[in-house]
């Protein structure tokens, strides 16, 4: 079972879509809405996102693979499952 972690924003529709993708494919995941998090959490996420060279959200980690942006085909491929967007 792959570990899926999302860094998202409560104001971003693409983040919402990426959460829906995992829900609809019955893949369990955890997420943090960065904009609603405390300063310490924001700092930690910010450093991690910078290290990966990303500037936008959603920031999706499937095990060690990082996928930035709403990219259902790549999510599916990383999970080894069929199907892109519903």
């Amino acid at each position: 079972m792959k570990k899926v972690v999302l860094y998202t924003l409560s104001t971003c529709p693409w983040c919402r879509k990426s959460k829906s993708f995992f829900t609809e494919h019955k893949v369990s995941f955890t997420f943090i809405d960065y904009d609603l998090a405390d300063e310490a959490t924001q700092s930690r996420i910010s450093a991690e996102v910078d290290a990966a060279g990303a500037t936008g959200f959603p920031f999706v980690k499937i095990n060690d693979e990082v996928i930035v942006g709403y990219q259902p085909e790549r999510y599916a491929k990383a999970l080894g499952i069929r199907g892109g967007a519903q």
Partner: protein
Amino acid sequence: MNAESRKSALRYFFEKVVEPLGFKFTPDAELKEFLLDQEVILEAKHGTPFCPCQPLRHERVRDMKMVCPCIPFHRAHFDAIKRCWCGLFVHKDVLDPNTLPQLEPKDVGLE
């Protein structure tokens, strides 16, 4: 502040900025209204209409690059994917914005 009035003002100001850059508002009306609603909220909270899809770092110089319209700061990237990151703006010739995936710079051979 009335959110609808603020949205009208943002539509007016943004159109003038993005048009000479070769962009227009997305034809996806629902997405456009949703993103503008978020920007009104962000502006009320932070004093500036930031991109709803990029994380604020609370460092002025970095966050300036996320003030909507942020196209000038991401020109090569957005021109390559024909849209801005959150999708509020697309290239003028785009008829169906659903055909534009949300790709990073490295996905299109940049940086």
